[in-house]
């Protein structure tokens, strides 16, 4: 009798375990709206790769328990198509959204996500207005302040007295340039501001103006890859008497080091990682390994940001599923050391801990030079590519 009861109990336990397991195991579909074609295709693709790595790693980590699927729609670098993409993804039943690039695209896209009641997490839009709208569903892991802090910190360390800021007339780049201007002017630095249009393909007249009229110690560039190449190429031809060329995002990357070795030597840009990548933490090593397996190349900062935002989202989804709460509520509870530093979210969905690092191209490598506690080498200063 006892043996029979034991057998029954064991069977019941196994059945219960299987039953409970089956009830808990869930498939989660995440939505991604990113620019995979159009002007922002390069950066959109970079973020998409990071998101894909996060999904892949989560599927390995939670194998047999949960599975994660990514539905991606290309917004073609168009705000209207981004809204349509978000609405379509909402209709497909995704649990939350990750991705987006460009503040002018993320604005309406996250508005649509908010209307659909879906969490939208990004690292592609840094303009302050995005987190001033009071959306409870909007989160981002980086912001203008973090980039400005890094650029200003480096310029202070250089003891620059005159700085020319050459910046693209888009929302995010203008905000960052003006933020840098205010901070530097407040410290008694003479700042010359030079706005340019995205269609500019010859920067010689602009750089010549900087060279002959401003005569700065440092040129600070706020734009995107093709803008940097244009400015640096013009500067290499005109050879202004400056001590450094400093940029922000998309500049201190392995891609730029490989593609434009003649232009990049001694140029600074924001960078979370040195190149070649040096990962010591196990999670970071796993990230780099997965990235290389999936895409056959070293990860860059875009992939890193895409990975971090998606990993945090997945964790929040699982917590919300287990506790029966909302994903936004769980994301707001985030306090996590990540590949880009500690991430928490304030009531606006911003990460107040975000501060970037500055890297410098040196002989085909990117060396982290600011802040001192993150540096893995010394800055070559003064130093320009010509």
């Amino acid at each position, binding site marked *: 009798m006892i043996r029979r009861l034991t057998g029954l109990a064991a069977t019941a336990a196994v059945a219960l375990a299987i039953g409970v397991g089956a009830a808990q195991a869930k498939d989660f579909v995440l939505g991604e709206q990113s620019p*995979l*074609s*159009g*002007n922002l*295709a*390069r950066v*959109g*693709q970079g973020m998409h790769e990071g998101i894909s790595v996060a999904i892949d790693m989560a599927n390995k980590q939670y194998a047999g328990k949960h599975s994660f699927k990514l539905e991606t729609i290309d917004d073609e*670098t168009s705000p209207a198509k981004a809204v349509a993409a978000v609405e379509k993804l909402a209709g497909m039943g995704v649990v939350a959204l990750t991705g987006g690039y460009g503040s002018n695209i993320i604005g309406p896209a996250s508005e649509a996500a908010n209307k659909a009641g879906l969490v939208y997490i990004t690292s592609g839009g840094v303009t302050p207005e995005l987190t001033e709208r009071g959306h409870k569903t909007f989160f981002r892991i980086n912001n203008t302040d973090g980039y400005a802090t890094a650029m200003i910190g480096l310029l202070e360390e250089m003891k620059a007295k005159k700085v020319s800021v050459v910046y693209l*007339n888009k929302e995010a780049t203008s905000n960052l340039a003006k933020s840098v201007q205010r901070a530097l002017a407040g410290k008694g630095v003479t700042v010359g501001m*030079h*706005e*340019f*249009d995205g*269609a*500019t*393909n*010859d*920067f*010689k*007249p*602009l750089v*010549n*103006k900087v060279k*002959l*009229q401003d005569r700065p110690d440092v040129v600070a560039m706020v734009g995107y*890859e*093709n803008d940097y*190449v*244009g400015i640096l*190429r013009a500067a*290499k*031809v*005109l*050879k202004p008497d400056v001590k450094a060329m400093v940029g922000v995002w998309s500049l201190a990357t392995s*891609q730029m080091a490989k*593609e*434009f*070795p*003649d232009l990049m030597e001694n140029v600074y840009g924001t960078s979370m990682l040195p190149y070649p990548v040096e990962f010591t933490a196990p999670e970071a090593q796993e990230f780099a390994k997965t990235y290389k397996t999936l895409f056959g190349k070293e990860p860059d900062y875009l992939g890193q940001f895409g990975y971090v935002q998606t990993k945090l989202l997945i964790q929040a989804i699982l917590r919300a599923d287990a506790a029966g709460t909302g994903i936004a509520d769980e994301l707001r509870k985030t306090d996590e050391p990540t590949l880009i530093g500690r991430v928490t979210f304030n009531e606006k969905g911003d990460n107040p801990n975000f501060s970037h690092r500055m890297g410098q191209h040196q002989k085909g490598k990117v060396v982290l030079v600011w802040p001192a506690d993150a540096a893995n080498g010394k800055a070559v200063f003064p130093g320009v590519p010509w």
Partner: protein
Amino acid sequence: MLELTLQALFSGLLAGGYYATVAVGLALVFGTMRVINLAHGELVLLAAYIAYAGESRYGLNPVLCIPFALVVVCASAAIVYALLARIEQDREMNSLILTFGLGVILTNLILMTWAADIHSTTNAWMLDSVVLADTLFAMRSEVVFFVAGLALMAAVHLWLSRSWQGRAVRALSSNRNAAKLMGVDPSRTEVLSFLVAGALSTFAGIAIYTGKTIYPALGHVMTVKAFIITVLAGMGSIPGVLIGAIMIGVIESFTVTYAAASLQELAGMVLFLVVLFVAPSGLFGGKKALPR
């Protein structure tokens, strides 16, 4: 002040040369067929990417990639023509839709083949600086392709004005029916102008690759600029294309130097509108060039 002005003028001149090399192929097709080939910029871009592929994979000098690019781009131009030739009704409007669609297809094919990264030549000789009179600065590639572009445009102008085929193109542009009565084969002449436009696009693509950065979305930007210059020039006018392009290049350059770089596109558009207001047929668009 003088240094700034001279450099602005020089940079504007070189930029105008680039614009002209991109626009001349579009102007030729527009003049012959009354067709705005909205895939023109993508054909130029295709040549640029072929030069990139040749340089990055096989270490070829971009100029040596011209023969291969010529074959691919001319073949692509011939396909565009073959599709356009099938339009039987409302050719002007339907050709816009067709070529726009072909442009989108080409952009996406380029994106799929070469990804979205930006590229430019790594040829040190091309990128070296040229300094004239210790005041005027440029990249060697800019000067080389400016001079070569002028020579090419002169050759096209001579071909149009001196050769029988060139005269046939102009005759077709001026009066299609009269040209047919004079023994001009419209289809043959049109395909010829498309092939010549393909050759010009190839040259422009190599010039762009050696002096600027290329990325998949650039094709559309070049089409718009080429269209503005073509209309500014007056339909089918080669000298008009050169002068219009240089005017736009110079005004953009002066706007950057003496106003703000962010206003340069606006300045070009204002010039465009002013010219069209004063001369609705464009700079060199006499009445002869307009009617069919």
